[in-house]
């Protein structure tokens, strides 16, 4: 009957960051991993994906990027190497090939049933990822049978699709990247656009992540945010990490020949229907981007003036998003119409194995900055967990340190209580 003070579920960047923080605090722990280290990166990402963050930004507790391309963007194999290298660097106690099938809470701790026996732990850290399950709208079941449907989680490359016109649903980083790639494969691509986050790759000569980092925006915490539910549901920004550092906003896609339509409205027989709200959706994204750029400009002339390297270019604004005068409101599915639908409609964590009543009515884990209401239970790696940067690799560092501090105090309190009880 294996026992550990703490069991961490998942050996990705978050779980390993927590492992290092606990090791530094001298807390005995183990990391259970269903596959290999960085498993989701190895098995659930499309081939061409690169991180949205430049290499210089990628760091974990006591570990930083040390290659010769700080402004480059890591490919998936490079991310796997980075995370595996980290596990080796810190000597993380990882048990690979161990799938957690059920976690339950008992007196004084947790039982973790795995396919290789049950672990008992005083505390448990859920670090199994935010992108385990691809979200698909309910109406997906109404797609005609001659239309090939694939989620961004299962998509690897354009060859996975049938020949013919392709509808990409969703205009976050995933949707715009797949739309561009599939368009370049020679297929006619239509992109269904709901609420999205428009960001330039480069602003005033500097990567947008440079601005967001130095102006303190990525460090904004949950206490700074009025509407946390909304902040946690914001889609990933329309960015791509390429050597050319090109913008991948809707104008860039339109210029390449991708057709823009509104948010998916429904499927009726052999027609897919789109909302007539595209103009407003784009307006909202333009206004929000400009609000951010205003903030960055104000920072550059105010608090940030001393931090700016000399060569920052003049402030400017980008063209408003160009929306077709009369976007299509419906398209034919199957036959001569759309032959492929790619669902780039977001991801959810899979915590179906967590047998603890800690979920809200929409099935989301309730937590306060990663601290679950069940004492000793923590979660890492979710969108805006504690800070705006929580969803990035480097965001795990501060989050893991904070939660490790909380966790250690919690273990000590309980140990103290046991000692008092025994005495």
């Amino acid at each position, binding site marked *: 009957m294996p026992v550990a003070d703490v069991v961490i579920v998942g050996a990705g960047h978050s779980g390993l960051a927590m492992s290092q923080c606990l090791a530094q605090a001298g807390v005995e722990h183990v990391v259970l991993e269903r596959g290999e280290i960085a498993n989701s990166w190895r098995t659930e990402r499309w081939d061409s994906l690169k991180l949205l963050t430049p290499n210089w930004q990628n760091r974990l507790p006591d570990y930083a990027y040390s290659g010769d391309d700080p402004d480059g963007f890591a490919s998936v194999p490079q991310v796997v190497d980075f995370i595996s290298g980290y596990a080796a660097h810190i000597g993380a106690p990882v048990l690979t090939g161990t799938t957690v099938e059920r976690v339950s809470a008992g007196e004084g701790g947790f039982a973790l049933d795995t396919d290789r026996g049950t672990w008992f732990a005083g505390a448990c850290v859920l670090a199994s990822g935010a992108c385990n399950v691809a979200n698909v709208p309910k109406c997906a079941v109404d797609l005609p049978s001659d239309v090939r449907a694939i989620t961004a989680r299962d998509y690897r490359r354009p060859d996975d699709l049938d020949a013919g016109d392709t509808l990409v649903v969703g205009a976050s980083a995933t949707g715009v990247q797949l739309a561009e790639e599939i368009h370049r494969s020679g297929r006619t691509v239509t992109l269904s656009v709901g609420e999205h986050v428009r960001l330039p790759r480069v602003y005033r000569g500097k990567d947008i992540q440079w601005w967001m980092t130095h102006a303190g925006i990525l460090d904004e915490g949950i206490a700074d945010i009025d509407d946390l539910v909304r902040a946690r549901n914001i889609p990933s920004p329309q960015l791509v990490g390429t050597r050319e550092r090109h913008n991948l906003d809707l104008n860039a896609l339109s210029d390449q020949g991708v057709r823009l339509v509104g948010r998916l409205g429904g499927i009726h027989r052999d027609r897919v229907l789109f909302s007539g709200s595209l103009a407003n959706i784009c307006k909202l994204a333009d206004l929000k981007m400009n609000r951010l750029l205003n903030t960055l400009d104000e920072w550059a002339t105010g608090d940030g003036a001393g931090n700016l390297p000399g060569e920052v270019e003049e402030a400017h604004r980008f063209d408003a998003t160009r929306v077709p005068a009369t976007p299509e409101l*419906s398209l034919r599915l199957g036959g001569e119409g759309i032959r492929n639908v790619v669902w780039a409609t977001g991801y959810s964590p899979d915590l179906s194995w967590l047998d603890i009543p800690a979920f809200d009515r929409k099935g989301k884990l309730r937590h306060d900055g990663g601290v679950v209401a069940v004492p000793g239970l923590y979660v890492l790696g979710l969108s805006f967990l504690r800070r705006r940067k929580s969803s990035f690799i480097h965001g795990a560092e501060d989050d893991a340190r904070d939660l490790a501090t909380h966790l250690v105090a919690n273990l000590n309190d309980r140990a103290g209580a046991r000692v008092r009880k025994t005495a």
Partner: protein
Amino acid sequence: MSGLMTTNSDSGSFIFVTTLGVLNSSYAYAKAPLQTASAGAYDRAFFAPRPAIHGPQTRKEKMSDKADNGVNVEALLNAREAVSEAPEAAQFRWRAACEWKNGTHSQSTVEGYFGLGAEQRHKRTFAFDADHPETFAAEDNGATPVEYVLVGLASCLTAGVASVAQNRDIQLRSVQATLEGDMDIQGILGADADVRNGFSGIRVTYNIDADASRDDIEALVAQSQKRSAVYDIITNPTNVTVDVK
């Protein structure tokens, strides 16, 4: 910064979705279950009016540095919090009744609705005459039904502008909107089967005078669309059933 700001069609131009034309009249409508919660199960004070602060005196005393557009945003925000805890209280059912008068003239009334777990009533019954103009060889006893659609959209978006402005502490001085809906009546006359019955497009133009920058005013109008029921009804497909008793 103040001054007359005009927000025109590039932020307020909507395209009417073709669905109603495509789907014809045989809709399946998934009926929401009738709410069974007992009357008054939810505090009507969700939306209860705040103590009067609209009067100039009160405003001077309490709100001199705050925008006051006459919208009780606090109650709306409280309601949002309350319904996220008790989502069944958020289930509303709106109703209208209609009686044919003569020709294309009918009169519709609204009075009761269901919400907050109980039957509710307007302060009085509101009546709306609808007809068609003389160009349609009718008597013009009221606005045409499609004009009521424009009225619904205009009033919904404008209520939204006021609410969002209040929430963002922006004082409005005047808000005016003009709406245009384009229609090829070959559709409703059955003269050309390729022409839809409804609007081919709707344009809304706002003229807003407020204590805010142009970007902030455009953001009010954009956010108002994002939160508007009628905008959603017009831009997205809705299942409709029409039965005969």
